[in-house]
């Protein structure tokens, strides 16, 4: 197990470095390179940049310097958005805001989505099931910006119940978190339903029924545990959904988080911020995938992932 964790950690680290290299090389396709904006920066800034990243040096050495500096937590300074402020400080300031909303949405998605899926599977073929399936299919068909803007329209414009922007109190969190969690919730629900149906048809469920276990015990003790494993493996992609949903939701509700800032930096072409945020968010998703893989192993000892894929 320890060997496996070390191996996966090393793999993930290599992947993050690969992503960083790719980002750097792609950004070098931009005329003038990523550290120079379209208008040339002031001579002092230019000199400082050239000294730090060796912009006069060959590309491989620049790349090496960028990656080494990255591990020291130095992503360069912002060119336009917050001129000359280190990018790492900006990420440190913005990320907690996004993380808080994202985490609440993730918890909401899982704690509501899984029970919904289980209820739907339990009442398979009945009205309850078809109603829930319609809602869940609708949920994965409606883009996050539609959910976000319709919630905004309904609760802020029409009835003026909730604040439309900022993060001053708890009531500011209701709409963004609902909008953000809707898609992952329905996605989790659908997954939970199908894996619950798989679990219900297994032999051990019939055994449990035969020995006289109550329905409640069968569902919660036997079926649910095994049904949760496929759902668990989707926590990685789920994080990615929340991330991309965050870009939209933070933009719609004007939340000063990293997602909205990332989009703004793309629109403003502030390249150091774009690069740093891309690498940071990619590392986050890769890390979540790592955690999921390890959890998978802990939860289901039948799967011996150390033996390689099949």
């Amino acid at each position, binding site marked *: 197990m320890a060997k496996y964790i070390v191996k996966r950690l090393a793999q993930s680290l290599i992947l993050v470095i690969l992503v960083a290299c790719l980002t750097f090389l792609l950004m070098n396709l931009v005329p003038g390179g990523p550290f120079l904006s379209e208008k040339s920066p002031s001579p002092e800034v230019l000199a400082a940049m050239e000294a730090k990243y060796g912009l006069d040096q060959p590309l491989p050495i620049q790349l090496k310097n960028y990656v080494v500096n990255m591990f020291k937590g130095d992503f360069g300074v912002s060119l336009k958005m917050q001129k000359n402020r280190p990018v790492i400080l900006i990420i440190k300031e913005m990320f907690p805001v996004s993380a808080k909303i994202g985490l609440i949405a993730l918890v909401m998605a899982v704690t509501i989505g899984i029970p919904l899926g289980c209820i739907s599977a339990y009442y398979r073929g009945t009205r309850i099931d078809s109603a829930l399936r319609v809602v869940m299919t609708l949920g994965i068909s409606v883009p996050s*910006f539609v959910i976000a803007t319709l919630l905004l329209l309904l609760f802020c414009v029409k009835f003026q119940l909730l604040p439309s922007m900022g993060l001053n109190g708890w009531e500011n969190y209701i709409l963004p978190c609902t909008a953000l969690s809707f898609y992952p919730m329905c996605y989790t629900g659908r997954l939970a339903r199908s894996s619950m149906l798989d679990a219900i048809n297994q032999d051990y469920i019939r055994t449990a029924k035969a020995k006289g276990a109550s329905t409640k015990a069968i569902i919660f003790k036997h079926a649910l545990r095994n049904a949760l494993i496929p759902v668990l493996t989707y926590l990685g992609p789920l994080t990615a959904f929340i991330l*991309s949903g965050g870009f*939209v939701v933070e933009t719609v509700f004007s939340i000063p988080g990293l997602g909205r800032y990332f989009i703004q930096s793309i629109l403003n072409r502030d390249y150091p911020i774009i690069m740093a945020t891309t690498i940071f968010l990619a590392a986050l998703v890769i890390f979540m995938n790592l955690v999921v893989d390890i959890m998978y192993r802990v939860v289901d000892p039948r799967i011996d992932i150390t033996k390689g894929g099949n």
Partner: protein
Amino acid sequence: MIRSGNQMFTLKPDYNKLPDGIEFQEDDFLTASEEDKENFIEKAPSVSYWKDAWRRLKHNRVAVVALAILFVIVFFAFIGPLFFEADYTTQVRGSENLGPSLSHPFGTDKFGRDLMIRTMYGSRVSLIVGVCASLIVLVIGTVYGSISGYLGGRVDSVMMRFLDLIYSVPDILVVLLLSTVIHQPLQAWCNTSHSGLASSLVTLGPGLISIFVAFGLLYWVSMARIIRGQVLMLKQMEYVTAARALGASRTRIIRRHLWPNCIGQIIVTTCLQIPSAIFLESFLSFLGIGVSAPMTSLGAIAADALGGIYSYPYRLVIPSIILSLMILSLNLFGDGLRDALDPRLKK
């Protein structure tokens, strides 16, 4: 008499056990005449795979309704603009910010452009992006998956490792990154060259191009996995062994024997790829990174409407509903298609 193992069977009917009311005449055992044969064929016509699938699909009410809605949207997007002289760029002075009326059913925007015509063109962009991106996925995914599955062994495991690598890169970040990177070189290239290709690439804009590139780079992974699984199963079949024994080359076996047999899976996966491409396009356009003005898409129309949400809420609601309806019908139709083409998968 037929001897099979230790048991004995007889082909002679057991007269004693026939139920009452059934009696055989001598002429029941005569060979059928030509007329009889023709009648027999007429009574039970053979049903092809497609006819069978279509019959199943027709009985699926949800899928039929979804298909009907899709037809309406396609009509709206492609035929609709033909009825109007104005197009998505036409600005009419003096009719800015009108509400819905007879001459402008969806109203006009702040430049005096008719919103219904813009919505038509927007839906058209969404549909075209969805279909084209899915075709890219179809080609790359099918070829990659079948090569990996058919060759097997070390080649397969290396190819699958590569898939895992691609799978773990967050796709949305790649799209955003690509659109940023493509933007300036594209503009620079178009300013210098005046060829038809350059101008059409500008109309597309860096956002849409990066969507296509990203679909070509990343999104075919799930398609390749599905096709690989199918090919792994199908290549064990006797007809593949037979084809190999007859000296068919690998390419021929893949093209003539394996692909036709996973056509159902290929179609369904491609079909379900369309809504995800539309999803991505509207997402990017909403954030202002997708289509570039004056071209528009449903996401861009919604984004424009966000500024006037207090005064003109319908501007936001209409494109949102059309977009959601489009994706929902595509999803439902794809599900129906899966049930129809491959009833074994039905849950």
